């Protein structure tokens, strides 16, 4: 181990050690607040370390690197897990989820995300992705008292295992013809612009199917609504913001290394188109807010894939920007839902009526997040969609861009219905909003970020443009 190795691996070490300490501490003292506190400190520590230290590109003995992109996303994932931990405190008490395994699992999941972000070879990439997904198998079913939560967890496990198998098989096939696991070599060798051989083609097909599951792209989207509806909302925030961000990052680590992506265009085009259409149209018909957000998430990932296809017009930075933006939107939306549900709000749209006045903080944050998801300025959702459509038109994907923008217009309707329920009805009961200071802080911060990043995207964008072609 050289100092460079340690410097790169330190965030991973912090997360892993933090998780173990949380577990041991919990076993010894059963002081849950303290356990969560340790986990939050570990997550923040890892994040701050990676944002504060300069990028290191080569780790001599590990299949890891810590380039700018990895550093940025490490910070993003760890801060998000800290935020999720804060939001989970109140929610877990409310749902009767106890034990130190919860914060420890969050940290292990973050560990997987960070490993994925720093991977330089396909094996580490796969291990990181699976470590993360494994964490989510537990988290989705952690509300053991609730049957729906168990069912959702089982569904996610089966689907996830299937997709992992696809992904592993795809990677094996790619290894089979290139003889290497290093990302850049595999990409250079298999995607050259001419049609790859049958084995490489099959390998890529399996990888794409696996990724479609993780990103919940149509036609591999069916697990999404159930999980979004049944899992505890902070877990959904983490899943929606973190795991999809990680899956997008995985594609952003792979695809830019290729010489030419022409042979992947058709399947990606189809998935983007179907996801935008199916996601947005199905969301119109939902009467439960979380289910609606699940379909919305399918549609949002369609926009992200649109950006990936438009790589010639600057789509990669746009996709990375949107992944981060979507992460913050998910955190804000499901964070607000966490607070609302704990305050006795049910899951259907009707039960959200008038909450804007009885639960002002959570409702305001939810409204900002919904406007961002709908792509209304001055939020980051608008700026992100603007970048995506600009790159799509520049890359010549005018048909898909037009369909995308028309479906975005449709999507405004269902987002607005929730805002209308929140603010355009009189509150049914006069209740005091039960929200802790830390929760207010996390929610407020994410809402402010949604607007600030929308108005001043320059720095983040310049950074992403520097690290992505």
């Amino acid at each position, binding site marked *: 181990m050289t100092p460079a190795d340690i410097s790169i691996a330190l965030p991973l070490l912090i997360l892993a050690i933090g998780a173990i300490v949380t577990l041991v501490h919990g076993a010894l003292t059963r002081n849950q607040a303290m356990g969560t506190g340790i986990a939050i400190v570990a997550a923040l520590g890892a994040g701050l370390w990676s944002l504060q230290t300069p990028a290191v590109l080569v780790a001599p003995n590990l299949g890891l690197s810590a380039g700018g992109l990895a550093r940025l996303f490490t910070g993003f994932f760890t801060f998000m897990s800290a935020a999720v931990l804060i939001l989970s405190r109140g929610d877990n008490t409310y749902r009767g989820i106890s034990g130190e395994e919860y914060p420890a699992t969050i940290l292990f999941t973050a560990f997987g995300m960070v490993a994925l972000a720093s991977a330089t070879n396909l094996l580490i990439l796969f291990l990181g992705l699976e470590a993360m997904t494994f964490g989510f198998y537990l988290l989705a079913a952690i509300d053991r008292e609730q049957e729906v939560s168990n069912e959702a967890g089982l569904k996610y496990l089966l689907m996830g295992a299937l997709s992992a198998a696809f992904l592993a098989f795809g990677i094996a096939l790619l290894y089979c013809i290139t003889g290497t696991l290093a990302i850049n070599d595999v990409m250079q060798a298999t995607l050259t612009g001419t049609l790859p051989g049958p084995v490489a083609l099959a390998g890529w097909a399996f990888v794409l199917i696996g990724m479609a599951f993780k990103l919940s792209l149509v036609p591999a989207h069916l697990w999404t609504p159930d999980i979004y509806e049944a899992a505890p909302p902070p877990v959904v925030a983490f899943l929606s913001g973190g795991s999809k961000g990680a899956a997008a990052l995985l594609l952003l680590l792979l695809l830019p290394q290729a010489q030419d992506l022409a042979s992947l265009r058709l399947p990606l085009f189809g998935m983007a188109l179907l996801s935008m259409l199916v996601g947005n149209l199905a969301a119109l018909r939902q009467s439960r807010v979380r289910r609606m957000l699940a379909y919305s998430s399918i549609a949002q990932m369609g926009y992200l894939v649109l950006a990936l296809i438009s790589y010639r017009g600057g789509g990669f930075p746009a996709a990375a920007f949107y992944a981060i933006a979507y992460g913050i939107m998910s955190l804000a939306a499901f964070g607000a839902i966490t607070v609302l549900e704990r305050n006795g709000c049910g899951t259907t749209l009707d039960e959200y009526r008038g909450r804007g006045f009885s639960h002002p903080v959570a409702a305001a944050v939810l409204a900002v997040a919904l406007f961002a998801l709908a792509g209304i300025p*001055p939020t980051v959702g*608008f700026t992100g969609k603007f970048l995506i459509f600009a790159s799509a038109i520049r890359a010549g994907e005018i048909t898909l861009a037009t369909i995308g923008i028309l479906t975005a217009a449709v999507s405004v309707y269902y987002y607005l219905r929730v805002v209308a329920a929140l603010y*355009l009805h009189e509150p049914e009961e006069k209740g005091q909003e039960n929200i802790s200071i830390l929760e207010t802080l996390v929610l407020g911060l994410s809402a402010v970020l949604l607007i600030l990043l929308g108005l001043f995207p320059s720095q983040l964008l310049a950074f992403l443009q520097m690290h992505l072609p």
Partner: protein
Amino acid sequence: MTTFPVLTILIVLPLVSGICLIPLRKRQTSAKNLALALTVVELAIACWTWTLAGSPPPPGAPQGFFLFEDFSWIDGLGIRFTLGMDGISLLLVIMTALLTIIAMLASWQTVTERTVLHYILLLVMESSILGVFLSLDLFLFYLFWEVMLIPMFFLIGIWGHGRKIYSAIKFFVFTLAGSLLMLLAIIGLYLIHGRESGVYTFNFSALIGTHLDPTVGIWLYAAFLLSFAIKFPLVPFHTWLPDAHTDAPTAGSIDLAGLLLKTGAYGLIRFGYPLFPDAAKTLTPLLFIMAVAGILYTAWIAFAQKDMKRLVAYSSVGHMGFVALGIAAWTPVALSGSILQMVSHGITTSALFAMVGMLQSRTNTREISAYGGLWGKVPILSCFFMLFAMASAGLPGLNNFVGEFLILTGSYKVAQTATILAFLGLILSLVYTVRLLQEVLFQEERQPLALDDLGFREICTLTILALGVFYIGLHPGPLLDLLSQPVNILMGGAP
């Protein structure tokens, strides 16, 4: 002087005022007073910029703009925070500041629930509309263009009547759908210009010179036109408006008719024609048809309305048809008339909506058939009502006459049939206005109505508007002087 960012202050001040109101949630009266005081300050600043009109353009400003501000914003994409003010913007900015005050006064006593939020939304509305009128960067323009929907959505939805939620959502989705296509067109224009010149920018004056393939030009312009036609609103894209007006609170109607509709016309004048001169010329017949159809159709529909507010809403669409006619003709006289008509329409329609609101708050009904014999019972109210209704119908000496006269004169040479048909529309509008006056003011009382005459605050509100009516009607010279230079520049002539 040039270093003092007065335009930025104009846009930011209402927003900051809105934020200042948040801590006063529990103290309604002080919040209302503060909001009003700050909007008066805003109006004062807007009027002060008038004194600068005619001064030479500051460095970097396009021709005709006497105030210009340009700050770095999103450099990577060629987006800058560019604001500019010429005679056209100046008139609309002053009108916006004035009508916001009127809207606040109109809500003074009628809005009793969530009052502070109401005033905050009015301020946000003012801010975003001023942004639309002052932006010279297409990205910035689009940003304000969409932001202004949010406060309006809440104004209609929270304080509205009847099917307010349906109307609020319809308003938002309808207008947004058109805007999104314009966003694609803006991006398209940006990319074409970037490829052509190597400079990727959203700067309006840089984009003007873009050389466009005729077919591409028509598609891009059509997207702009659609978006503007929905805001305008031109028949057949007007269907959201009567619903929105009917269900909006009075202040919402004032903002909607007085300000929001103007952004469509302004966008067409400022961006549509200059950016796509050839395509605009090709599609001029379409604009003529939509304008005349709007004038005639809405006059016909207005005649059949039973609800006073719906009647005013349709008449408002009709007047905007005149504005569209003047723009379509694109002669200096007609265009000046259109811009003046935008201001006049803002004043008279807002006044009528305010008065309908006053009647409604007294009797709880807007049905024309419920009224009658007001002339004898509430003389002051009736006088004002008659004044504004006649102004709206285009009585000479009052404000709308000037604009409509200029539009018709200026258009006649270019499009005779359209002008003649529009003139018929003018007569029709007189018919429904006289009917309204007759039924509400002069007919015998149909059912006993207990109503008080105007209070001091209401008289003040209406007097301000009445002064505007007479000023534009009798002495439009200074305003037309203000418009002559920018209009000449738009026509491609020397300043």
